[in-house]
């Protein structure tokens, strides 16, 4: 079982796995020195990190605003204490007070134990930023988790899941190792299925040159979320768009953003820009993926090494626009089950998508019930930042981390008759919630939002 001195830890990538993402793991006897060197580099670069290190008053307001702490009651999962795992090292080596007063001001020498703590706790954090929202000073603890995970990556400590995804991104351009023939086969299958189910004749164009719109789906949609792909396909067909899916980057997510915000993240961005250029598109539209949408919307401008001439919007920005301008004919009665919306944290807190989600939702379903808290105060599903580990220990953690969300879903009453829908328009949320709604017996089915749009479209 992957634990270290009573701390849960995800299964680690092997040396071989790490080589595939271009890292030679640092030997134990050099880890501490290297960690300090990397920390020094990060603190000189990221102001968001420095101010998080130097302006927290440890008031504790973040504690009960963190689903991880609420679910585990582990004091190190209080956001400020999680940041303290790095702050104590930062203080010891990079501040006067830490060098002079040591323990009194909470400074501590670095050790392998500390690095193992980082690995345990920075991979229990969902990077959902509810703590940043609740902090009186707006300290973004997510930035601390980013820095922690980046340093761990450079040291060669990455969960096997994340490292495998990183390797798959470089090999085939998506997270699930889905090669073009498989992608095309799945889409052809879905087109047939759509004809059977909806009586709609359409195709999913792949790598079609001179397309106007580049649609970036989540690769998990090709394995699990059939209706998300169908919904997007139905929408683009309905509006008569000249669209295509790029096989070299059939991935809305970007796990690089979650553990290596340098090469791994940038590599996926460059693939996207290549695809957009080669296919001659005019606009890029993003599929349902929370972290990926934040990584795309907020990070591509600063990640791309060349000009980005294509506007990038989210599919729900577009759907909402066509609903607001009365151009889509939707029949909400086709979605008659009670529905509640889980606001993915990256949409609502980092990307300002929450109102558009509601516009789309209200036009597509009959019985929509808001969850409280919601929008920018939404609680994470517990899988945020890709902590979808499935070894028994970490799986138990996932149940704990989703406890708060389960409580909120139950409070909406949508699952009371066992026929509710929990709409979670994000691949990580879906992957987390599919098993979690069973574990917590919520009586709901997990769906994406474009899924519901696809069903509600009126064709004739």
């Amino acid at each position, binding site marked *: 079982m992957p634990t270290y001195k009573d701390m849960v830890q995800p299964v680690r990538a092997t040396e071989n796995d790490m080589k595939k993402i271009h890292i030679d793991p640092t030997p134990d006897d050099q880890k501490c020195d290297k960690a300090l060197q990397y920390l020094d580099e990060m603190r000189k670069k*990221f102001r968001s990190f420095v101010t998080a290190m130097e302006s*927290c*008053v440890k008031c*504790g307001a973040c*504690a009960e605003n963190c689903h991880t702490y609420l679910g585990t009651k582990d004091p190190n999962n209080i956001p400020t204490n999680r940041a303290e795992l790095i702050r104590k090292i930062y203080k010891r080596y990079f501040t006067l007070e830490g060098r002079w007063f040591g323990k009194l001001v909470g400074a501590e020498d670095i050790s392998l134990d500390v690095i193992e703590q980082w690995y345990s706790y920075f991979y229990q954090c969902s990077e959902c*930023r509810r703590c940043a929202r609740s902090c*009186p000073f*707006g300290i973004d603890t997510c930035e601390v988790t980013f820095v922690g995970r980046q340093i761990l990556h450079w040291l060669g400590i990455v969960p096997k899941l994340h490292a495998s995804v990183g390797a798959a991104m470089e090999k085939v351009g998506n997270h699930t190792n889905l090669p073009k023939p498989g992608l095309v086969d799945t889409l052809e299958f879905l087109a047939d299925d759509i004809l059977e189910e909806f009586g709609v004749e359409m195709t999913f164009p792949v790598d079609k040159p001179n397309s106007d719109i580049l649609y970036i789906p989540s690769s998990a949609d090709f394995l699990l979320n059939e209706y998300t792909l169908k919904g997007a396909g139905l929408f683009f067909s309905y509006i*008569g768009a000249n669209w295509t899916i790029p096989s070299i980057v059939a991935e809305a997510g970007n796990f690089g953003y979650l553990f290596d915000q340098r090469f791994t993240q940038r590599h996926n961005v460059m693939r996207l820009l290549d695809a957009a250029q080669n296919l001659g598109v005019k606009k890029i539209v993003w599929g349902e993926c929370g972290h990926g949408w934040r990584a795309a919307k907020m990070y591509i401008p600063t990640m791309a090494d060349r000009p980005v001439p294509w506007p990038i919007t989210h599919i729900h920005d577009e759907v909402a626009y066509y609903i607001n301008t009365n151009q889509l004919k939707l029949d909400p009665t086709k979605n008659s089950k009670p529905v509640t919306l889980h606001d993915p944290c990256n949409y609502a807190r980092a990307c300002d998508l929450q109102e558009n989600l509601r516009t789309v939702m209200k036009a597509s379903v009959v019985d929509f019930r808001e969850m409280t808290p919601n929008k920018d105060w939404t609680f994470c599903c517990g899988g945020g930042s890709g902590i979808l580990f499935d070894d028994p220990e970490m799986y138990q953690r996932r149940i704990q981390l989703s406890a708060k969300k389960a409580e909120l879903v139950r409070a909406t009453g949508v699952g009371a008759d066992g026929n509710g829908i929990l709409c979670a328009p994000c691949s990580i949320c879906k992957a987390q919630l599919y098993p979690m709604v069973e574990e917590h017996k919520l009586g709901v089915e997990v769906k994406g939002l474009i899924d519901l749009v696809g069903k509600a479209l009126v064709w004739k």
Partner: protein
Amino acid sequence: MSYFIMQIMPYITLVVFTFGVLFRLGRWAGSRIVHNITLAPFPQRNSQVLGIFAAEAIFFRSLFSSDRTLWVGAWLMHIALFSVIGGHIVGIYTLGEEFIYLGLSSDLSKEMSALLGVTFGILMLAALVYLLIRRFTITKVKAVTGPSDYLMLILLLAIVTIGDIMRVFEHQFGIDYAPVKDFVAHLIMLKPLPLDHLALTTPFFVLHIFFVQILLMLFPFSKLMHVFGMFANRWIINRVYKEPAPGLPNVDIAAARQAGIGVPSGEGGV
């Protein structure tokens, strides 16, 4: 000793505080805002950004939503703190006659000044005690509290308690405005005070000034930097983001529906 605290230490304090803060802020400025990490709420105009800054700085709005019980103590403490600091400045400058400008008589103004001083002094004391008790009793807060967090509160409590004693037992332990103003003026003019000056011989006043100086010297090297940190953080996360316009290229839905795209042939379009 009292000569050192009152006549030499203030200059050391000034240097440590100023250069300490500049050093810290310089370090912050040296690092960059690398990516856009805007956070909700999403202001559309810079005036709204200003509104967010103001609501956070004046009303602690985020804290109000996230932890109401802490907000009560923290907000009261800070409001009392700013009132007390303001009271010190105008009170000492006008020798307690600041309310003359509001139409009060000189005596009434002094009474008023004293009354407000006592009120906010006690309020701040109560709020600080509340915050300290909170650190001892609430599990989650206890879990985030380190030795320096307790010490900082105790230092503040010491300063406020001494100040309150000087106010409440004015005749036994307090000091008048005049000698204090004299003390400040001499400090500014770099002129030493005579050794038997009241400001140097009133034990509680000396102690009060001593602790305040300790606090100011600790300021740049402690969590007190949150005063600047709040603005530095919000400068990063609360900013206007311009959305690209929605609407897809070469899409004409009416025409597409007219043509019956997607509807199998044989069934015919509309």
